[in-house]
């Protein structure tokens, strides 16, 4: 499937911003099964400096500095991405979760690209309540990815999608209590749960193709950025799971970046000098060609 992607973010400030810096993760990453045909980011006002680099998790990232007074900032990411349908891995043929946890916590040699995702991070930190919730999906001897799929399904069933219930700083324990949130909350819960059992899980930032109700046209800008998780097993490597939609992504998910949690790969994280109150308008279009 080939997609035309447009992700527009418009900041409006009540007072002029004297200087702003932004760390952006908007360029889709080249991952197995995904080809980035082209990608550009338009910024208005033009930044005084813009530096592209690869971050510590291998994602393309950009740091912008805007040095002139501005009351509005537009960041518009556009690209064409090709995603091929994935062969569904045999999740039942993976190692038992406890064996994997034991192997990863044992002596070296270590695969650091896996081990780093076992460790606690800012938004996905093991805690007793999270562990107890996740543990139900992992009875003795269960293959690790089978457990991950079960956890994905349970989160889908137990939690209500509610964009008003949480914000960037909501903790997983709080989420467990209120039982509602958005995709990034569900991803954090799943990751924290897996890590509290000693299993490697990472956060995936990206987009999802949405299907308008039958008979209705696609609405402009109605798509959204999305988040899901990726779990590692020695037999399969990293395999994605989407707790918000209770599925294993195939060719309708576009990957931007991998990180330990939202903080590592937030699409746009800015620090401003001045600015007063601000409003953000986001419009995302994922159009299959």
């Amino acid at each position, binding site marked *: 499937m080939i997609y035309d992607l447009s992700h527009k*973010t418009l*900041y409006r400030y009540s007072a002029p911003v*004297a*200087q702003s*810096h*932004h*760390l952006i993760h908007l360029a889709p990453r080249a991952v197995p099964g995904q080809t980035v045909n082209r990608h550009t980011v338009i910024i208005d006002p033009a930044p*005084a*400096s813009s*530096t592209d*680099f690869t*971050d*510590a998790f291998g994602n393309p990232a950009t*740091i912008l*500095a805007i*040095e002139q007074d501005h009351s509005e900032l537009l960041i518009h990411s556009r690209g064409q991405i090709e995603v091929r349908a994935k062969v569904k891995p045999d999740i039942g043929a993976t190692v038992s979760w406890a064996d994997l946890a034991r192997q990863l*916590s044992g*002596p*070296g*040699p*270590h695969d*650091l690209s896996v*081990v*780093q995702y*076992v*460790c*606690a991070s800012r938004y996905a*930190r*093991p*805690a*007793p309540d999270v*562990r107890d919730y996740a543990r139900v999906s992992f009875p003795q001897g269960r293959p690790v990815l089978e457990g991950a799929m079960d956890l994905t399904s349970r989160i889908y069933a137990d939690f209500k999608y509610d*964009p*008003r219930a949480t*914000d*960037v700083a909501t903790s997983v324990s709080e989420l467990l209590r209120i039982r509602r949130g*958005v*995709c*990034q909350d569900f991803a954090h819960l799943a990751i924290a749960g897996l890590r*509290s059992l000693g299993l490697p899980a990472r956060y995936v*930032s990206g987009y999802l193709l949405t299907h308008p109700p039958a008979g209705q046209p696609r609405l402009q800008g*109605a798509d*959204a*950025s*999305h*988040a899901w998780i990726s779990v590692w097993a020695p037999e399969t490597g990293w395999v994605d799971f989407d707790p918000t939609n209770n599925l294993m992504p195939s060719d309708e998910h576009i990957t931007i970046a991998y990180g330990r949690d*939202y903080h590592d790969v*937030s*699409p*746009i*994280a*800015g*620090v*401003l*000098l*001045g*600015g007063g109150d*601000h409003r*953000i308008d*986001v419009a995302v279009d994922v159009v299959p060609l």
Partner: protein
Amino acid sequence: MSVLAMTTQVEGAPAAGDDPFQDYGAHALRYDELATPDGAIRPHWRVFCDEFRAIPSDRRMARVLRLNRLVRENGIAEDIFADAAQTAEPWRIDLLPVIFSAGEWAFLERAVIQRARLASAILADVYGPQTLLRSGDAPPTLIFSDGAYLRPCLNAPDPSLDFYAVDLARAPDGSWRALDTHAETPAGSGFALANRVVHAQVASDLFRSVNGLRLAPFYQKLQSELLSRVNRDDPLIALLTPGPHHEDYFGHAYLARYLGLVLMEGGDMRVVGGRVYMKTLEGLKLIDLIVRCVEGASADPLEFSPSGFLGPVGLMQAVRKSPRLVSNMLGSAIVENRGLAQYLPALCKKLLGEDLALPDAPRWWLGDEASRAHAFANFNRMVIRRAREGTGRPGGAEFGRSPARMSQDAAAALRDEIVLNGATLVAEEPVGFATTPSWTPTGVRPAPYAVRLFAARFGGEYHVMPGGIALTVDAATGVSLSAADGNTRDVWVASPNEVNHHVTLMRPAIEVSSVQRSGKGLRSRAADNLFWLGRYTERADGTMRLMRAALTRMRDEGAESRAGEAVRMALAAILDKDAGRKDDDKREPLKAVEDLVVTLMTSRDRAYSLPSTLESAHQVASLLRDRLSTEAWRALQSFETNPVWRGDAMPAGVTDIIDALDQGVATLAAFNGMVAENMTRNHGWRFLDIGRRLERASNLSELLLALFGQAHDDDSETSGLLFTLEAADSIITFRSRYLFAPVLALVLDLLLLDETNPRSVGFQLAAVDAHLSALPQASQSGVQTEEQRMILELLTRVRLAKVAQLAQTGPDGSRGEFRALFLHIVNTLPRLSEAITRRYFSLTEDELRRVYSRTGPRP
């Protein structure tokens, strides 16, 4: 303090000639620095003990008192924003140092250097090839679970350490062990330095006899090293501090001043185009090197902790461009992780090919299964602490949690926490501490202690500072440098060789302040603080003079005084400034004056009372420690430590109050003298002087307006004028010019127009005018800035005023022209102050904020 005062304070102390070591009583089974197990004094202490014994006991006591006073006056480790009513643990310095023999020191030096080299090698790997993590020689989950591991710093070109410190203690058997490593900032060495400087003032004779090694050469070499890293004439080297609210701020300011670095907060810096600049009044100035005294994780909110605003936004970007910009490198604190302890011996072998000379105290990283099993099997003997603690303050280490002292439920919860998050925890087994002599009023006693030693890298090698900071620790519960009572001591290294004692560390402030150059530009924030320091000290001075004049009149003239009403109005006018209150006191003046004096002397609720004003002066001065000479600071500090000026102890009678005011005025005069004589005539001095001049012009104008806007009968007016002349310190000048009683017109000539009188309004305005024209943003052409126009207009109006006309009264006894002029002055000066603030200080106003985009559909 005079000798007389010293001896009178120690009346009742034991007679001279007693032996302070007589009842020392070191434990035979626990190592003691001073005494061997059989009670003999160790050889390297003998000279010290002999000389110490020879000091008469009253003199020893006098030294202790002087030491305490010096600590207070220098404000070591003082939290300047702490609630005055809440006294935290005071910083104390023991009269007795810890003395190490040359042989012992040679071992410690070697061991500390080895540990620093090891830490540096580990750092190079975990931010470089990560071989140790892949092999498991250093567990990757230990490193990755530590918030101090900053991934953006991966693949830095030359990851290494410049500043290293380690907390050491002897086990009761005398063997050394390492308690904690400090690789984040060099902050603690500021305390060690301050301790030495202060302690040397009471013990330099003993220090010389012991042949102690001096610290100055270490810091001189360090300073040369920093300068040599910057390939530029007149470089700008910053010491980045979290600011005055941080508990280590004293150490930061002290170190900055000593090394001649510019003390800056993140807000004083700005990153443009991948380079870091200091914001100054003249614009942005390129910073060449940053000595980092803020946590790495909080040093750049863009790439590290989103809530850490201690460094400039974009610092990591700048480091990518100039890898040696920040020292220690960002992320260096990872080697502090306590969990590394059990891996260090093998790492030392592997990385350095050497045996680890000085291993850590018994400590198990709870992310490792075998260690966890050991800790659980011996749970009640263990203390559980975080692998990363994050405080570097000497003595501030947390005590940790002891399962033995917990309920069963709490211990079970702790076990569960260890299973879940063991990677961030360690278990430690307390093994006790050796002792060192400590001074007590009843003689010298052994006290359990630990010591922090400091190393720095210069010329490509690590060097250990020949001193340190030792603390009395809580031997019963402590496993680390946790000092409950704030009792510190200096560390002396007895040298077998002759030491050159001609260069002294005793006045570092003066030595180093001469190194500071005006060309570095004035931070906008410092300009703001200097301006307010000028205002507050002048406000205190004016208030004291006015009260003194008032009380003298009342005492000498009593109820007969015709100045009573004038005095009451003058004092009430000061207090009413904060509330905008109307003066409507109808009581008998003498009684009212008494009440006003009490309020002015003691109230902390009124903004313009003396305790409030002096407290404000002290706070802004604290923020300017790096710019004030030790003497100037101590002058202000003496108000803070005196209960009279804190408003806690009101002198008993009028004469005592006048005496106190005399002393206060003299202290402020000393401060002003120091400023006048010692401060370079740069922009900083100008702002301080502008503050002072504006305040003085304002206070005098308000006084004149309050007292003479309305004519009174001749006697009252004469009395009021005498009072005003006295308060304005101009009575002698007046008497030298006129041999008769003062009349308003002549007093106005002296106090308003006469620009040769440094107390007149005209003098103040002319000085402000001159300053404003000399400042960097003053107009160089014909068009004047807003504040320049305001001062010119004021000055011109004053210069054109005719005193005879001003003194004329209307039919109702009011002085119309007088009132118009002074009201104009009194109303314009605050607007002038605001205009200056807008132009010069506003760079510091805006606060940084974060914005995120949100994932998912809009709500």
